[in-house]
């Protein structure tokens, strides 16, 4: 019985985790539309007005973000950026390792845009996915 309860609790926790929302957040200097996020993370949009955008990946929730927002698997995403770098000399986004690192980076870096798996509080939220 105890094992079953533990299993149910673990399943519920896993289900909650799977349904957890993600948030695309940006520095206060960034003003982009939600539908532009995919273009930014595939390198097709590198400027917002006069401001150079600085996209940053979040290794902790990258798969979920790529699947839901960029609509690519990580291998194709990496291939897109490799070709982009090779053809156009554009560097791929740096990868940070946690929500906290991304929130700190975005808060302090003009032009930055990233994504997190937890509620970012008062951050500039561009898209909830």
């Amino acid at each position: 019985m105890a094992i079953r309860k533990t299993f149910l609790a673990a399943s519920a926790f896993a289900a909650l985790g799977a349904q957890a929302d993600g948030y695309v957040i940006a520095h206060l200097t960034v003003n982009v539309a939600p539908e532009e996020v995919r273009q930014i993370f595939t390198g097709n949009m590198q400027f917002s007005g006069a401001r150079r955008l600085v996209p940053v990946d979040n290794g902790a929730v990258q798969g979920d973000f790529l699947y839901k927002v960029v609509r690519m698997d990580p291998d194709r995403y990496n291939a897109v950026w490799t070709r982009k770098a090779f053809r156009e000399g554009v560097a791929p986004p740096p990868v940070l390792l946690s929500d906290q690192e991304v929130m700190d980076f975005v808060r302090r870096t003009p032009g930055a845009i990233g994504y997190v798996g937890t509620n970012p509080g008062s951050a500039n939220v561009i898209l909830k996915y």
Partner: protein
Amino acid sequence: MGGEKLNITRQSACLGLAGILLAGPALADDAARIRELEKKLERSMQRIDELSAKVQRLEQGATAAAPAADQEARVEALERRVGQLGDGISRRVLEDNTLLRGFADVGAGYSGENNPSFGRGRKGFGVGNLDLYLTPQIGERVRSLVELNFEVGEDGHTDADLERAQLGYAFSDAATVWLGRFHTPYGYWNTAYHHGAQLQTSLSRPRFLDFEDRGGILPAHTVGTWLSGSVPAAAGQFGYDLYGGNAQRIETDAGRRTLNPMAWGRRDSAYTAGFNAWLEPGAVDGLRLGLHGLRSTIEDDAAAPNRTRLAMVGGYGVYQANHWEVLAEYFQFGNRDLSGGSGLHRSRAGYAQAGYAWGAVTPYARLESARLDQRDSYFLSQYYGRSYRRGVLGLRYDLDPRAALKFEFANTDQRDLGAANDRYNEARIQYSIRF
């Protein structure tokens, strides 16, 4: 406050030094340097927090004894410094992405080619390319791309080529201007893959699109200027390339006449100009359709030089999604003889390739053909300017997302050799990586 300034200056200097070290040639220590830089970045962030806290305390009137105007000035100065630190971090993020990237491939093969023009095909093991490229991020708008390629020639010697040396400035997403030597942006393959053997699904390139000294009949490199960009359009994403530069020249190198990009300029004024326009329709993810054209005046190094007005137009379609990769390109030539008065000569070349990825395994097939008018001195002068047809079957196995093992079988029908026309088979294996 003076001590704080000194500390901030030292930290900035440390971070600057870390940036220079990271961008330096000793790339084997990148991981350690990145960790060190992260630590220093973290210390800077803590410093920003401290300064922010001070700003808050000042705003809350903790120094009420100070005159209001003086206090206001100090708060503004602190805010400026915090802002500058933020901008500094932003710039460092851009600059610190200067990593050495590249491609390498080795392999083995058998070629049954045997004819008077091209001789006997090669057999045995071989070294392909070692291709290194850098994309230093210098500030927000300055772009740079430098590529150095090492390859073993048929004489067994290793040659180093400055493949690309292009410096650019990005005005916006819609306009980046480059100056220098670049991959001529015709069609799709030449700029998408070029020396990146691991990037392309197949082991070989279509022969007519190969490098100038490996079978190619088109100017794969241009020295000049290139304007490119892309913008969202109603139907999807629209992109373009406009370029111009020194006209290439057909010159004899190691007994073979091939195209030379004239990287050191020309004594006369002959130029190349071209365009490429493409659309990625929003309705079909992974599809790109494009049109391109190129015009140039090409002469060879004969005692009485043959001059040709090269005029090429073409179209291409690329689909890369849902495990499929389908590529098709077509080139139509309408070259005019400027020195011999033989008039206009029409030729054409094209290929279609399809592959489907089942996990790590991708079988693929390609058909390619070039029908080149031998009365056209542009083709006749070039060592590889002969018509041919080729069928290719291959299998790619991705050992890792950055390493591929490829097997390829090709059957070539070599034409325009008169009675010596040659039909032969080739089998090759290649191990390629990118890093």
